[in-house]
């Protein structure tokens, strides 16, 4: 099977009672699960499977672009965002994702242009504000904070994920104190997410807090095959007083 999924899945025919229906919604749930487990490759495959079912589902396209960004393939993400915009023209979330891809690829002017374009549209999503926050966090802190707050306000049921994303972007900018605030709120709702625990653990480790070990242990328990988390746990467990003080 291309996606490494269950090969025993029957092709067509009547499904037995209680069997999971593998429709677009199922794959969306799977993709979100893998994303929150920081397995971006599998998440990307599940987003592709959503589009296999129905290529007009917006979440599939946006998810693919986001996963490409998470995998560090910014140029490909940009190309794919353009492709998605052929189907969903002037979509603010796709514009925001394109801005994010440009920003992470160190193309600041383009990123600002796309972000400006995205906030000028209607029906703004949290992603639009989170991207804007990421772009402006270095240079215009108060604007960025406002953007994060707007993202959380318009998140509705996606609140925990938006908080997780906010925490991640603040950690990326080394603003650990604020990041911990959001990540702690996120792990309360996403207690089964290795990604949330990992981000929290990393922030705590950077501030020299002893809770880092327990957060990272929690993360490793939830996803034992995650090498990065295990390495981080090992590193945190073995560092001395001076390193803890320096947040290294």
């Amino acid at each position, binding site marked *: 099977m291309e996606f490494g999924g269950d090969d025993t899945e029957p092709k067509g025919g009547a499904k037995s009672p209680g069997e999971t229906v593998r429709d677009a919604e199922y794959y969306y749930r799977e993709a979100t699960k893998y994303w929150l487990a920081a397995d971006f490759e599998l998440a990307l495959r599940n987003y592709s499977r959503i589009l296999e079912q129905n290529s007009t589902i917006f979440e*599939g396209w946006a998810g693919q672009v986001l996963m490409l960004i998470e995998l560090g393939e910014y140029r*490909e993400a940009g190309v794919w965002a353009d492709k998605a915009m052929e*189907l*969903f*023209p002037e979509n603010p979330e796709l514009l925001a994702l394109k801005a994010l891809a440009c920003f992470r690829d160190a193309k600041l002017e383009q990123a600002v242009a796309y972000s400006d374009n995205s906030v000028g549209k209607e029906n703004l999503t949290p992603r639009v504000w989170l991207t804007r926050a990421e772009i402006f966090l270095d240079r215009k802190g108060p604007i960025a904070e406002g953007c994060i707050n707007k993202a959380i306000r318009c998140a509705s049921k996606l609140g925990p994920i938006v908080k997780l994303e906010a925490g991640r972007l603040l950690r990326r900018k080394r603003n650990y104190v604020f990041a911990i605030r959001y990540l702690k709120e996120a792990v309360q709702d996403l207690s089964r997410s290795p990604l949330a625990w990992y981000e929290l653990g990393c922030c705590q480790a950077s501030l020299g807090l002893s809770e880092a070990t327990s957060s990272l242990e929690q993360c490793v328990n939830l996803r034992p095959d995650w090498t990065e988390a295990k390495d981080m746990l090992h590193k945190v467990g073995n560092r001395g007083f001076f390193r803890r003080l320096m947040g290294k």
Partner: protein
Amino acid sequence: MRCARCEFENIPGQTRCIRCGSILEAGSAVIDIYPPRMPAWRKPIRAVRRWARTQRVLSRMPATVQRGFDLVVSDSLVGLMLSIIPGLPHLIRRRFREVRLLVLLWFILLCASLFFYHSPTGAVLIGLTLAVHAWIAVRYGLVEEIRGFGERVALVLIVVIFLALVYWAVPRVLIRGFGGGYTSLAIPARNISRGDYFLVRHVPRAEEPLPRGTLVLIEPPRIRNAQRDLRLNQRQRMIGQIIGLAGETVRVEGTAYVIGGQRLEPSQFPVPHWLQQSPPRAVTGIAVPDHSYFVSTDYAVAVHGHAAVTDQAISNACIARTSDIRGRAFLHWWPLSRRRFMEQ
């Protein structure tokens, strides 16, 4: 027709939603739903470029420097390097379809130019092969990155020179001591005529000493100034035939060589014209020293101040040390009608 994105009820027959512009119907067969992926080897290259952009190192430099840097760390340059095998970077990037016909053309031209190697047709064909190869390499992406006409021409020239060096080096690396040379001997028993062209390869130590009759490529002897009585017109490497082995003595009787009192068949071991005219005078013949061979080749001889060529001059011209032998002929290449592998 309801839009899947904004749930707006559109007029039947619409392809896009009136409210949000989303497409209303799309089959996965017509839309590619699998995103492009980045090959792992490209990660560090992109990281360098990103770092340069982040640090704004280049923004303060002249535009030419910026373009040069971009080119050096671009994917295209790596692609160019990989293009030593035509189409390889395209294959890695899943763009092989773009150049598949060009690669096929290159392969056909390469086969044809190998077949006609060392002939005017072969030279034209190898030129075309090189041009197609260069075009495949440049097409990978450099053409888009370099805008000016002059720059493009310069780039293509550089690529052609680079690939020409590769073409020159590859056979020499694959076949050690690869080369070729013309023979000035006619050997009827072996169906060899004057002017035939042979391909040669390195002689491994295990093959030494070479048997009598072997055709070898030798350096022309440098005796022009040392021996004023014998002037050779051969300036390039040439194919000669091994006649005498180390420790033997070689005499010439009429049209045949005599080795240790035994006459060699002239149709298999022909005596060149100049030796028939001026055979060695010593009764014992010319002794072949250790680690040397008596190699028979035809020279155009000009004698000054003497009635005949001296034995010393013949010895200098015909005795080749092992180190003078550049290779052993393994393929009778030209003319085409006599093309065949040499019996070893």
